[in-house]
Every structure is written in structure tokens, then in C-alpha cells.
């Protein structure tokens, strides 16, 4: 085969490979949707009595819209509460009386942190602490509550 034709076909081959990987990363893995906030992020902390099955990299949502990710989960050795660090995009501000709740996608899906902004005029700065928190719903507690209710009736 002529030298030029050979080079051409191999070039087409490599081009096909590049197109495939572009397709796989953009259309299949949805990389462009992931794009971390272009303006940077800041960290907020929240303590919960029970975080359920919350994992690192779980989304932080406000009204269903993803504004950040959970970056760290630790146990406070004095109060025995779970303390989580939230990485939130810089253009989302929350007032000092915001509340954080651990919710579940669907009924038994994966868990995420839902934030709700309060009415205060002051905003939480970097390394701020969200004081109003609501723990995850534990299915066993609900069932035992239901059972005791049934028994008393």
C-alpha cells in the first residue's frame, strides 16, 4: 500500500478513537455537567445526631438544585455528633440561620444534604457553621414508633 494512503488511514483510525473518547466523556459520562463552580468554592460545617448513610461526595441541594458536595465526615469526640464539611459554590450564599437536613432521593435512594436559607441579613462566611440541623430518617425508628402506636390503640 502506498505510504500516503497508509498514513491517511491510520490517521483516520486515531481520529475515530479521539471522537469516541470525546463522545464517551461528554455524552455518556456527562463531564460538562459536572463542571465544578467556575468562581470557586467555600466550606461550611454542620453537625448531625445521625447522618444515616450519607457518603463523601454526596450532593448538597437547595430546592433540588445541586450547589455543592460533601467533602468530609468526622465524629466530634466530645459531643458524639457527626460533623460534615460541605463544599459550596461561591455564588450561593446562605444566611446565618440557615438549616441543613439529610434527605433521601426517592424513597430508599441515596442520601443528600438539603439546605434551606433563613431570613437573617448576615451571611455565613467560609468555615461557617450551620446551627439548625435535622438528622436523617432512620427506617427502624419509624417502624418501632409505628408498632408502639398500633399496640397502644
Amino acid at each position: 500500500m502506498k505510504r500516503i494512503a497508509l498514513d491517511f488511514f491510520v490517521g483516520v483510525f486515531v481520529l475515530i478513537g479521539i471522537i469516541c473518547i470525546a463522545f464517551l466523556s461528554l455524552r455518556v459520562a456527562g463531564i460538562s455537567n459536572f463542571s465544578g463552580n467556575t468562581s470557586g468554592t467555600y466550606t461550611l460545617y454542620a453537625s448531625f445526631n445521625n447522618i444515616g448513610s450519607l457518603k463523601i461526595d454526596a450532593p448538597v441541594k437547595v430546592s433540588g438544585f445541586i450547589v455543592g458536595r460533601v467533602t468530609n465526615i468526622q465524629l466530634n469526640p466530645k459531643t458524639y455528633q457527626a460533623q460534615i464539611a460541605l463544599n459550596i459554590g461561591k455564588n450561593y450564599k446562605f444566611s446565618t440561620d440557615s438549616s441543613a437536613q439529610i434527605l433521601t432521593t426517592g424513597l430508599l435512594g441515596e442520601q443528600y444534604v438539603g439546605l434551606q436559607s433563613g431570613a437573617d441579613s448576615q451571611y455565613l462566611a467560609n468555615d461557617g457553621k450551620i446551627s439548625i440541623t435535622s438528622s436523617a430518617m432512620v427506617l427502624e425508628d419509624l417502624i418501632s414508633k409505628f408498632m408502639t402506636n398500633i399496640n397502644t390503640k
Partner: protein
Amino acid sequence: MKRIYNAIAIIGSPFTTFILHLGRITNLFFQILLSLAYPFKNFSLIIKEIHFSGVRSIVIIAVSGWFVGMVLGLQGYNTLERFGSVSMLGSVVALSLLRELGPVLSAILFASRAGSGMTAEIGLMKATEQIDAMSVMAVDPIKRIIAPKFIGGIIAVPILSLLFNTAGIWGGYFVGVTLLHLDRGTFWSQMQSSVQFHGDVMNGLIKSFIFGIAVTLIAVYQGFIAKPSALGVSLATTNTVVSSALTVLALDFILTALMF
């Protein structure tokens, strides 16, 4: 007494020959690594090999990928319909292809098409004494023949695996959305939320790269040690396909255990 001795020796010989081959193939691998600089100076050798093994396999890889994707779409639809989760079809097709079927099947198809071709070519060169003629002329056959084939193979296999995955996902799309009337937006968005670039796409690519090294190495090795006769070359070609398939499947298990 001697007959019992012989019988036990016959049982043990496959294992010892296997370990012998393992040692020789490692030896060949290091010899190839040492002579990697030469083909990069004569890039035309590598281009010819990529054309021979990669470009000519495009049709079989793309068509097989298309059909595998379509089958995944059909079978996935059948099973998911029972649980009412047909919307997950996109994730099922994409994850099965990216993580497992893409790398493994494209490596095995490459071995049967291009690997056997490589083995036959090197075996025939050995049978017609071209390899000996080369060493007599002070041209190292490993640098001239085997290393370019090796590099061509390890470049071609990941690209073919990507092509297989892409064709498969479009095949699944064709079956799910066009034939079975699933929602187009749901198909892609469910896929995007369950497929991770680093976890799935890159791991699949790393797998296919390792499979490429294994398959190409087995192909050139079998050609190199083929007995210089027609029967020897045909046995070597068969061995390439069988050993490659088994090695790819065994490596797949090990890599899956490590990665996922």
C-alpha cells in the same frame, strides 16, 4: 514402576511447559522493552503495523459492538420491565459495556483477527528463514519486526475498545429509543448520572490497555517460537487465539477485583 513414573510425568508436563513458556514470554517482553527506541526512529514501521492490526479490524469491532449493544438493550429491557425500571436501560447498557464487555470482547476479537495474523506472519517468516537471514545481516529481528508489531498492537487495542463501546451504546440507543420507544432524554440523562468518567470510562480504558499488552505479547511470542513448518504455524495461530482468550478473561477477573 517405570510406567507409573511416566504416567505421573505426563500429568506434570503441561504445568512445567506452562511455566517454561511464562518465563520465555517474560524474556521476550523485556527484550522488546529494551528495543523500543528503534521503531520510534523509523515511525513508518509502526504506522504499517497499526494499519495492519487496527485499521483493518475497524469493521469487525464496530459491527460486533453494534450488535452487542443491541442485544444488551433487548435483554436489559426484558428484565427491567418486570421491575418497572425501564428508565435505567441507558445505565445498564453503558455500564456493562464500559466496565466489562467493551475491553474484554474487543481484546478477544482483536486476538482472533489481528493477533492470529501477527502470529502467522512471524511464524511464516521463521519458516521461510527470513528471521535467520535478518540476524545474519546484523539486523535484530526483534527491533525490526516484533517491536513495531507490539507497539502497533498496544496503540490499536484501546482505540478499538473505545470504538466498540461507542458502537455498543449507539446500538443500545437504537433498540431502546428507536425500536422500543423509550424516552430519549431519560436514556441519556440516566446514563450520565450513573456513569463516572474516572471510575468507569478510564478504568475500562486501562483494562483495554493491559489486555492489549497481553494479547499482542502472546501473538508475537507464539509466532516467534512457532515450529518452522506449515503444521507448526497453524498450531501457533490456534494457540494465540486460545491463550489470548483465556489470558484476557483471567486478567479481567483480577483487574475487576482490583478496580471495582
